[in-house]
């Protein structure tokens, strides 16, 4: 049995119990964990993602303090996923604030490509490729999905699907930020419709009041009833709102029960997502 450190971090949060939880397990390069065990520990943690972090450069005793490049793998309680923004932010937060790594920039090798996180004024800043959504023409499947989230379907709804992640964005211009926060979706009633369109996540979004826009994120297809704060959703939402608001800099609020706040800066191909994080649980697990 080998002992590993384990943390629970609230990402896109400035106080405990808000934002999105991520489990972070620093895995020393000389003590790899088998995939099966990574799955089991993520199931035990039972939070949206548990991430495993291993240094790639500067190996040795001080590798977590010195390395600036790491492999990072994300597991939900049921599957390994290709992209997870909040757990990346959480991993960088652990490196900077718990493991004494003073580098200004971290590079993470992931299933979804290389992700870069920099220290910034708002905390930590991640750069993601955009996944620009395109309008879909309404059909029975999309109407069912809209109904499962909003309780109704209307011609005024704007629905766009992102080609890479296959995130479906639904916006009804007649609905306020409070309406989005008050939604009581039953997305599990539209599971089959979502499968037929290969939708991974459904996002309800609306104009914000203090913020530029608000959103709620639902992913029953990957085992997530509602995700409280979602980095990846904003690689789709940033270009969606950029077209409508003619802006490239946003403050976005995910108005889930826990809530999450993200700062976004858009260029042609990328979005930089900044946020802060709070460590809630510090502990160890023997594997």
């Amino acid at each position, binding site marked *: 049995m080998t002992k590993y450190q384990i943390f629970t971090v609230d990402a896109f949060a400035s106080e405990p119990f808000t934002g999105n939880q991520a489990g972070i397990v620093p895995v020393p390069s000389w003590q790899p964990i088998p995939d099966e065990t990574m799955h089991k520990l993520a199931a*035990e943690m039972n939070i949206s993602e548990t991430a495993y972090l291993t240094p790639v450069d500067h190996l040795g005793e001080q590798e977590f303090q010195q390395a600036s490049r790491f492999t990072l793998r994300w597991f939900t309680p049921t599957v390994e996923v290709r992209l997870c923004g909040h757990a990346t932010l959480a991993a960088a937060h652990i490196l900077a604030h718990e493991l004494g790594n003073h580098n200004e920039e971290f590079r993470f090798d992931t299933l979804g490509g290389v992700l870069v996180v920099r220290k910034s004024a708002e905390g930590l800043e991640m750069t993601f490729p955009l996944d620009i959504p395109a309008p879909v023409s309404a059909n029975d499947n999309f109407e069912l999905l809209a109904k499962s989230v909003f309780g109704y379907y209307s011609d005024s709804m704007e629905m766009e699907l992102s080609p890479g992640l296959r995130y479906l964005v639904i916006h009804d211009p007649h609905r306020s930020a409070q309406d989005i926060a008050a939604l009581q979706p039953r997305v599990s009633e539209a599971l089959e419709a979502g499968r037929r369109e290969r939708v991974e996540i459904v996002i309800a979004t609306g104009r914000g009041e203090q913020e530029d826009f608000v959103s709620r994120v639902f992913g029953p297809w990957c085992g997530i009833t509602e995700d409280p704060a979602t980095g990846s959703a904003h690689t789709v939402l940033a270009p969606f709102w950029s077209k409508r608001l003619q802006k490239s800099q946003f403050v976005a609020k995910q108005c889930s029960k826990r809530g999450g706040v993200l700062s976004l800066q858009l260029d042609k191909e990328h979005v930089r997502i900044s946020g802060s994080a709070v460590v809630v649980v510090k502990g*160890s697990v023997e594997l």
Partner: protein
Amino acid sequence: MKYEFYVVDAFTTNRFGGNPAGVVIIPHDATMSEATMQSIANEVNLPMTSFVQAADSNTFTLLWFNPTAKATFCGHATLAAAHILLTNSTEITLLSPIGELEAKRTSKGITLKFASNPPHRLEPSAQQQSIANEFLGQMPNPPSTQFFYEPTTNDLFILLDSIDDSEFARLSFPSAPENMAGLVGRMESLGIRGVVFVAQSQQANRDSISRVFNVRDKLVVEDQVTGSAHTVIAPLFYEIFGKSAIHAHQCSQRQGQLYLELVGDQVYISGNAVLAIQGNISV
């Protein structure tokens, strides 16, 4: 403020088996509001989290919270709490929402003493029958059923007359994903906490087999190992089969083993527990 925090797998000898529970230790001179307890239980998102505080050297108060609500009764989180607290003493008393519970280390792991909760026999309504059919309709020759209800647990118990252990473990509930919304609706309209399918085991080393399902977040989810349901299964098996000592197996994905002994109006539930994670939680 920092509190000791543990994740314990209950009713198993396998790490990551059984049913996980969080355990938070509140120092005797500290106070924690129930709102904070609920926030912690939501944060760690385990099926249940126990909050314990020493009242005197061998007596502790115990409260249970699931991610969304305070719970009235939870067996596996009690075992998890006892596993942490019994490192210093061999016998403790837990002052819980269902009264005083005794816990001690025995040859079967940890033994907890609960009040027995005998169920009442029911003539099933159409809705209760359709819940049974959703589960058993997947079999070519479904077994016949007897229905019971028990008010303390607020669970519907469906006793199957004969079923193969591995076939029982393979059945899904609902039988197909598209039946989920309908099943949630039927379970919600009955106002029950959960449905317990239970049968005699056909294996030599087990007496009872069970599967337990609850509604959470508009989804039917399987409870991995359920201590509370076994305060009902023990008197039920005594009444129907005349057995007072039962090796109970819960055939969920993570599986659980419980040893039940009915003595008068008490049920002794014994099982093992494994520490998975230890650390502290900052609030």
